[in-house]
């Protein structure tokens, strides 16, 4: 009797010790990521910044995913899909057995199904959705990717099948579904919160299907995630993921050196040689899916003359700008799309740096003494342009040598962008970061004839019928090889007409400890830690 009780007591003690040891047990792997800022909230539908998307990506998933490190798509919450030959109907077959996360306010009673997909898209699309206006109701990317124009209807075929009907065929539709704004939220959680009278909580305390669940968010300090034990996919190799928010890049590097974090974002360019020399650290790099350019407003004389635009291209020393301002963190650009994007045309030859030839060309255009112009520069750092003011000064000096007198102009960022889109400038620096890895995402919003209309997104207001026809056609085709041929031709036309001085594609660097493995740099600049391991 006593022996049995002792044995039972022993078992209980062991079990208690095991349970007690769990929270901070040795062997639990923690990865700390030094992040550059706080997320705005926990709903990627409402925001546009990479910082917010990064903080949401561990928790939420989408119908489709980008294969890590690439711009290719692969199934995620949708196992498979069919597109009708006319390209207008897409049917997604949803994955079975996907579990929702839970928290102290919510326990799911069912798996992920079509209702969640319908809810997540209707919230962004339809006024009739009870959540349409919640948390400010600003669905920026849903609008920016033109979905209200493209979508005709969204139907629930059955529990595991949804059908999107489009108004026109849209080749990039599948990559669009892999973007962060297309994240799927839990309808059950949404309904429960609405009933409890606190719908905003859906966007502050997230529930998703992803590999990590949110454990705690300490505003401006840390975000703690723990591995979701019922995750349907490959379980992450780390148990706890911590985002440590540090706004100063020097502080992030100091933490990385002290092993207080194992991976960090956005180092100072000046620190790169020191990081490379440090054997306890490794440095990954990748060209970003972006372009920095100087746009010529072709509606203003004398920039309407292609000879003048070509002359300016030959007058500015691109290599010097890359060395002085990008300091190695940039690739010289000759096409609007970066080399990492399919259909990038290497056959295009960039303009040479030849001030003498530039002067000759200007004289041919009737401007032997040059002309006066403005040269706009952004007041803020952008991913594709680390210091527009400095670049502007270098360009100003180069242009002066061929007789072009440029005055540098700047406005506060929001104002700047608005005025450039209104076409108030003669020459303005700006750029673009790709959203979905599709060339159409660069050419259409920036260089189509539609974009050149007043209020459109084109900084050059350039409208070339041949170019426009090529990109319009390419957007409707489904075969990538066919589309690539058209885009290659389009790049040749753009080069000949020179509506821009293309500056650079910036290179993104990611320092981490030498024992970090499995991290793949995303061409979109997204930070994803699902497959990371610490050796």
């Amino acid at each position, binding site marked *: 009797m006593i022996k049995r009780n002792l044995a039972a007591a022993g078992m209980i003690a062991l079990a208690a010790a095991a349970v007690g040891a769990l929270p901070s047990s040795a062997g639990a792997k923690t990865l700390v990521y030094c992040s550059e800022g706080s997320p705005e909230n926990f709903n990627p539908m409402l925001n546009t*910044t990479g910082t917010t998307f990064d903080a949401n990506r561990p928790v939420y998933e989408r119908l489709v995913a980008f294969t890590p490190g690439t711009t290719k798509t692969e199934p995620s919450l949708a196992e498979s899909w069919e597109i009708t030959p006319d390209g207008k109907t897409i049917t997604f077959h949803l994955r079975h057995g996907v579990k929702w996360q839970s928290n102290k306010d919510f326990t799911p009673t069912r798996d992920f199904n079509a209702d969640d997909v319908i809810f997540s898209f209707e919230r962004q699309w339809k006024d009739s959705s009870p959540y349409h206006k919640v948390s400010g109701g*600003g669905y920026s990317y849903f*609008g*920016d990717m033109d979905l209200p124009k493209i979508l005709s209807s969204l139907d629930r075929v059955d529990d595991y099948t949804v059908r999107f009907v489009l108004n026109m065929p849209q080749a990039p539709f599948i990559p669009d579904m892999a973007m962060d704004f297309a994240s799927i939220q839990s309808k059950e959680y949404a309904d429960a919160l609405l009933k409890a009278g606190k719908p905003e909580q859906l966007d502050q305390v997230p529930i998703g299907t992803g590999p990590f669940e949110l454990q705690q968010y300490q505003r401006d300090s840390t975000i703690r995630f723990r591995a979701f034990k019922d995750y349907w996919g490959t379980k992450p190799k780390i148990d706890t993921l911590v985002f440590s928010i540090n706004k100063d890049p020097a*502080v992030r590097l100091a933490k990385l050196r*002290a092993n*207080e974090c194992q991976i960090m974002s956005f180092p100072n360019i000046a620190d790169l040689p020191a990081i490379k020399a440090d054997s306890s650290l490794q440095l990954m790099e990748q060209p970003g899916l972006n372009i920095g350019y100087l746009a010529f407003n072709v509606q203003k004389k004398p920039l309407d003359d292609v000879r003048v635009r070509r002359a300016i291209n030959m007058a500015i020393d691109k290599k010097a700008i890359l060395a002085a301002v990008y300091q190695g963190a940039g690739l010289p650009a000759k096409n609007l799309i970066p080399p990492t994007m399919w259909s990038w045309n290497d056959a295009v030859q960039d303009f040479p740096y030849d001030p003498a030839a530039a002067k000759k060309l200007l004289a041919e255009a009737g401007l032997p003494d040059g002309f006066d112009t403005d040269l706009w520069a952004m007041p803020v750092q952008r991913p594709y342009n680390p210091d527009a003011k400095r670049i502007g000064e270098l360009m100003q000096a180069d242009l002066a040598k061929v007789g072009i007198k440029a005055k540098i102009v700047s406005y506060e960022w929001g*104002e700047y962008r608005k005025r450039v*889109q209104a076409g108030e400038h003669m020459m303005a620096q700006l750029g673009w970061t790709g959203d979905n890895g599709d060339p159409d995402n660069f050419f259409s919003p920036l260089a189509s004839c539609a974009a050149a209309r007043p209020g459109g997104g084109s900084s050059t207001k350039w409208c070339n019928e041949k170019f426009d026809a090529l990109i319009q056609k390419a957007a409707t085709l489904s075969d990538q090889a066919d589309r690539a041929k058209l885009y290659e031709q389009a790049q040749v036309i753009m080069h000949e007409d020179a509506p821009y001085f293309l500056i650079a594609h910036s290179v993104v660097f990611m320092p981490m400890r030498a024992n970090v493995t499995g991290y793949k740099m995303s061409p979109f600049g997204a930070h994803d830690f699902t497959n990371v391991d610490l050796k």
Partner: protein
Amino acid sequence: MLRYLLRRIGMIVPTFVAVTFLSFMLIRLVPGDPIEVRAGEHGVPPERLAEFRHQFGLDQPLWKQFLDYEAQLLHGDLGTSIVTQDSVLHAFFQLFPATIELSVCAILFAVLVGMPLGVIAAVKRGSGFDYGLMGISVTGASMPIPWWGLMMILIFSVAFGWTPVSGRISDAYFIEPVTGFMLIDCWWSDDAGACTSAASHLILPTIVLGTIPLAVVARMTRSAMLEVLSEDYIRTARAKGLGGARVVVVHALRNALIPVVTVIGLQVGSLLSGAILTETIFSWPGVGHWLIESIQRRDYPVLQGGTLLIATLVMLVNLGVDMTYGFLNPRIRR
């Protein structure tokens, strides 16, 4: 005393109106729209911009926006952040304890180190210690916080590894915020090392934030002491045969405290502005750096609400300082 208190409290209302008016107008003078400033290269379509502006009342005439805001304040509603959609008051109370914790530690550091140093410098006037101390305090007061903070991190955290780099506690610890004060909340943690970690994370930010107040307190104490030490009653006390330490501490220091307490009260205001920089360097999640971000984002409700709450705090502290005069110098009470 009571009449004095009531008069001071009566001044709060006009002060509030002035503070809200100033913060309201100043942020709106800065070019930039809260929606536009956060938009990327895509821009914001005009219909969406109009919708946002209408939603946040930004399309109303300015005078109406101001009056609506004042009415809202009277109901105790400080509004919601345009960026995070979270309540301003909720965010403030999440972040405020961190700023208080850091500021209290910094002022304690400044007083507990600065006052004795100032006293000793006054007593040993003219000596190497005196000149050395005053030289160091001038240097300390002249160092810009971002540089000073970063230097401390590079030397003590990276090179020597004695102190952590940034944050309030090691990321390995999961602390439930009960009071918001890490030194208190750490006691609830399962881990023994949590409180040690919290304390060690406070060392560098306290020193960095407290350096300028320390310099000011040390110098003020020294000059106040010098003045008092030359008074007749000190000579009398010495003539009566009282020991050096007793004269200095009991008789001299107590009378020297009035200008020193004034300075400490004024330092609270400068501590808050220093906190903004210190919080940014040490990734200390407090209100200082929340406010800076709200300016960059043109988050009007956060800036207005945050400024008002901090102004309230400063007013209360100054009220408290004035009340202590009466305690220190009975003559003022009447």
